[in-house]
């Protein structure tokens, strides 16, 4: 994903905009990564530990959308 070594842009506006863009990108990567882990049979506890967050946090953030998309059946 890196095309060049990360360097801080000179313009503060560009540097701060990059922070926002990276946060949004991290959210999208998280959505896809959690989805993939669940499809591979990972439990919420495993996903949570890998992300370094609580099981409750990861469940609250992802369970409903994965259920709605049919990726996940039960509440596990």
């Amino acid at each position, binding site marked *: *994903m*890196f*095309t*060049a*070594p*990360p*360097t*801080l*842009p000179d313009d503060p*506006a*560009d*540097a*701060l*905009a*990059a922070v*926002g*863009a*990276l946060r*949004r*990108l991290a*959210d*999208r*990567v998280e*959505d*896809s990564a959690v*989805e993939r882990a669940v499809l591979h049979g990972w439990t919420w506890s495993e996903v949570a530990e890998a992300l370094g967050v609580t099981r409750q946090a990861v469940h609250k953030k992802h369970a*409903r*959308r*994965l259920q*709605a*998309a049919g*990726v996940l059946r039960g509440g596990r």
Partner: protein
Amino acid sequence: MAFERFTRDARAAVVGAREQARAQGHHDVEAEHLLLFLAGRAEFQALGLDRDRLADALATEEERSLAAVGVAAGELEPSIAPRAPRKLQFATSAKLSLQRAMKVAAARGDRRLTAGHVLLGVLAAERGRVPRALQLAQIDVEDLRARI
């Protein structure tokens, strides 16, 4: 927020921004979603706002901001299941737009808050994704504000 003072159109903008965020698979409602929704309305298109051009400008802004720190984000495969079921929350940028809209209405002595006030509230941002995208879309914000 004094929501009862919002006109029907202003309420539609709040609801529309949430739908816009949801349709894009975004996690929160931001000022950019208010802008995109309002840019789709005929009354603001007549003033020169172009929804497609703004959407392109927002995408370009994201791409360039990531590129500025060496990240090319185009390759990420999209999630099968975007965040949708939950009621999306209004993030700081969107709340700020609405607060500014109320200030504009108050400063003009208007009792009701209209969609035009909401747009003025969105356009009042001097920093962040909205002004950066407006600049990329080559929109003359001062001229636009004067005509709302």
